[in-house]
């Protein structure tokens, strides 16, 4: 009965979505405020209905109701509670429901906290959100109903892919969808701007908090997915240029461009039509990503539970949304008036250049991901576009992005002082070169390409800190006032600093990891040390044990340096009897400079074991960098100018005029 109630709620959400996409638009046409306000209440009901449906499905998983087909196919009574809950979205139907839940969550947040947005604008934004929700609710109800029942329920479920029974990947989809789906807000705001014919700085200010929130979530989601691959897939890699990874990376790249171009709109009322186009394209890439992953059209290590026939439905939605939006853009773009002007060397140009480079990066990933598919359809030839292609094409362009992130903040708005810029770049270069030489003396010379990579990362780090120091008045004001000045910096300045610093740290980590990683693969007898760089790894022994729903062999590997024990690692091999699948859990210990990483393989003859030992320098830096980037979005979000629910003036009211005595 509860299951049918969930099903009913989903239908209710669909009906509300229909009303929400029609009534507010009619209200705007006829200037009927009540009809416009209807959007707010509809968004609330739609969210409640979807959330209830989601809660019902979760309940079915928690109590292991195997009369529900989806639960029977994807869960098992012996699974730990955490994975019963996360199992809700670890399959196609459930993850689509999560998709719509997050979409309606953004709608209801706009309805609740967007009171500062003019009602006619809000009405159209929410109507567009509802149209997207309508498409995907119809998709769920018609092709992927999670509430389908079975006549003869099995005694137990078929279990869940054990690779996904992991805390990291459990949280990965919600965060990823927060970003993917959150970009729908950018899309809706862009459509609303085109419909109302109002594109101006206040529009950018209304849109920006939602994009920031989505972008932070997407950053964290991508990093979490990468982290999971790093410790779970067990060969020390963290990014594979896999089609599904690329599908989430493309909206991130373009979303990053959008965040930056929206700053220009907000501050200088320039780049208006470009920003609108970018908002549409960013969400288009989210939709394309959903299509690629959910249709199973691209083979990938991450594409679970997919079905090509459903792809046609999503493809139809995709064509409708992107085609409709771009047509509207083509019709209305000429009416958009560009505002402020600026010189060729200025902050605006820097941000525009950022957009050009990030767009080129996106095109590269897009073509690299989809070209094999097109070639297959057109000629029947099958080729592979793998990591070596992206390393050769993407990385050089992205190096430009990193370099620009260093120089951009030196430029002032409207017209930059070239002499000052030259001085700033020179000072940064000198400090970076000094640091670089120290590193070279300590670590030795790498090949030229890696040297270039490290140089850029150091340059960005130094430039960002110098810029922060300048903002805080170092060198011009007293030292004692420094803490006060730092605290007084607007949060958006901190956001810039943290984000760019995070990029520097992550880049340094990536370069270090791909440059200085050490790997030793061997069959060892327990007790025999293996040399990995400066460290010695010794397999002490292997013990068998039982987990909640798996059997496991846990090895103890001690790591020592010059005879002194540094740490111990506990890599595991697990066997999940329900799913009949093994998994490897790498044993990892993190230090500031890198990870000690060990993987246990199979037992060989004579009590020996196949083992893989790694020392991965820089990897913790990558996660730290990604964390900083993700947090930078939230910090910017907290800036009073951008606070959700703008534009309430947040400055305290001026003191009342005192009568002169």
């Amino acid at each position: 009965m509860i299951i049918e109630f969930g099903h009913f709620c989903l239908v209710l959400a669909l009906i509300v979505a229909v009303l929400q996409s029609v009534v507010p638009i009619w209200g705007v046409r006829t200037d009927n405020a009540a009809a416009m306000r209807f959007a707010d209440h509809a968004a609330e009901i739609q969210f409640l209905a979807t959330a209830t449906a989601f809660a019902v499905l979760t309940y079915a998983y928690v109590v292991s109701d195997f009369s529900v087909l989806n639960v029977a196919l994807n869960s098992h009574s012996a699974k730990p509670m955490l994975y019963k809950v996360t199992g809700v979205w670890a399959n196609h139907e459930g993850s689509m429901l999560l998709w719509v839940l997050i979409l309606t969550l953004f709608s209801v947040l706009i309805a609740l906290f967007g009171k500062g947005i003019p009602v006619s604008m809000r009405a159209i934004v929410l109507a567009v959100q509802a149209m997207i929700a309508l498409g995907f609710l119809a998709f769920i109800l018609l092709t992927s109903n999670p509430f389908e029942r079975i006549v003869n329920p099995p005694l137990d479920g078929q279990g869940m892919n054990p690779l996904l029974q992991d805390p990291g990947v459990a949280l990965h989809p919600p965060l990823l969808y927060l970003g993917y789906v959150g970009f729908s807000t950018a899309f809706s705001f862009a459509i609303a701007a085109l419909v109302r014919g109002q594109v101006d700085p206040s529009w950018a200010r209304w849109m920006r908090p939602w994009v920031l929130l989505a972008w932070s979530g997407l950053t964290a989601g991508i990093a979490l997915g990468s982290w999971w691959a790093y410790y779970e897939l067990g060969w020390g890699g963290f990014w594979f240029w896999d089609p599904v990874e690329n599908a989430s990376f493309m909206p991130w790249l373009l979303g990053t461009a959008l965040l930056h171009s929206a700053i220009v709109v907000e501050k200088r009322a320039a780049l208006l039509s470009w920003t609108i186009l970018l908002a549409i394209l960013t969400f288009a890439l989210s939709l394309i990503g959903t299509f690629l992953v959910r249709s199973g059209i691209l083979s990938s290590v991450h594409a679970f539970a997919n079905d090509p026939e459903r792809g046609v439905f999503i493809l139809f939605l995709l064509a409708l949304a992107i085609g409709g939006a771009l047509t509207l853009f083509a019709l209305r773009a000429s009416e958009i008036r560009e505002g402020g002007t600026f010189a060729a060397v200025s902050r605006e140009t820097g941000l525009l250049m950022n957009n050009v480079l990030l767009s080129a990066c996106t095109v590269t990933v897009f073509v690299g991901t989809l070209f094999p598919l097109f070639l297959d359809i057109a000629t029947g030839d099958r080729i592979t576009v793998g990591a070596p292609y992206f390393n050769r094409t993407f990385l050089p362009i992205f190096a430009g992005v990193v370099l620009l992130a260093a120089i951009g903040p030196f430029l002032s708005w409207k017209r930059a002082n070239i002499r000052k810029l030259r001085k700033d770049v020179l000072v940064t270069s000198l400090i970076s070169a000094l640091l670089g030489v120290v590193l070279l003396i300590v670590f030795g010379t790498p090949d030229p390409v890696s040297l270039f990579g490290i140089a850029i990362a150091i340059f960005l780090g130094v430039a960002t800190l110098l810029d922060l120091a300048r903002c805080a008045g170092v060198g011009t004001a007293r030292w004692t006032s420094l803490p006060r000045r730092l605290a007084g910096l607007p949060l958006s300045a901190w956001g810039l600093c943290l984000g760019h610093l995070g990029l520097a740290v992550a880049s340094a980590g990536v370069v270090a990891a791909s440059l200085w990683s050490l790997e030793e693969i061997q069959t060892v007898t327990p007790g025999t040390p293996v040399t990995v760089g400066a460290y010695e790894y010794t397999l002490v022994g292997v013990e068998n044990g039982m987990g909640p729903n798996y059997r496991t062999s846990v090895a103890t590997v001690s790591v020592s340096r010059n005879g002194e024990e540094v740490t111990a690692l506990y890599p595991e091999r697990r066997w999940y009897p329900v799913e009949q699948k093994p998994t490897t859990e790498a044993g990892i210990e993190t230090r500031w400079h890198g990870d000690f990483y060990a993987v246990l393989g199979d037992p060989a003859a004579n009590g020996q074991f196949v083992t893989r030992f790694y020392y991965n320098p820089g990897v913790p830096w990558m996660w730290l960098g990604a964390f900083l980037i993700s947090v930078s979005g939230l910090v910017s979000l907290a800036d009073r100018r951008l606070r959700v629910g703008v534009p309430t003036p947040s400055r305290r009211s001026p003191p009342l005029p005192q009568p002169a005595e």
Partner: protein
Amino acid sequence: MRTLLNHLLAGFLTVLAVTAVLSVPAFAVDGDEMFADPVREARARDVGRQLRCLVCQNQSIFDSNSGLAKDLRVLVRTRMNEGDSDSEILAYIADRYGDYVLLQPRFSMRNAILWAAPVLALLLGLAAMALYLKSRSPVRAEVSLSEDERAAARKLLQEGRS
């Protein structure tokens, strides 16, 4: 009683299954196939990381556990023993298994779009940016005054002073 039996049976099956899986060598790169010389082993890996495991999803043959990947690894090592260069080995394997096996697609007319796209995107973007900047640049070139105008200005200034 029934449940106890079930548990026993499940336990027995589990033990069977674990033994079955553990007895199959399922681990990328085992010790016996490797070169003793670390330099040659590193080279084998560089080559191997450019070849796709055909039965896997987007893994190189050096990251895969499958038997076919192992066969290809052994093939790479054999070709190295024969004295082939890296590109000869890649060509040798691509001739037999098709271009699908190459993680880095060939530079060829068929793949022209693929390889040209990043460069074209960058150039088009830069060109569009240059055009935009030119059309909107507020800074007019500073017009210098002609000698006649200068004289006129001087005259006007002097008139104002006197």
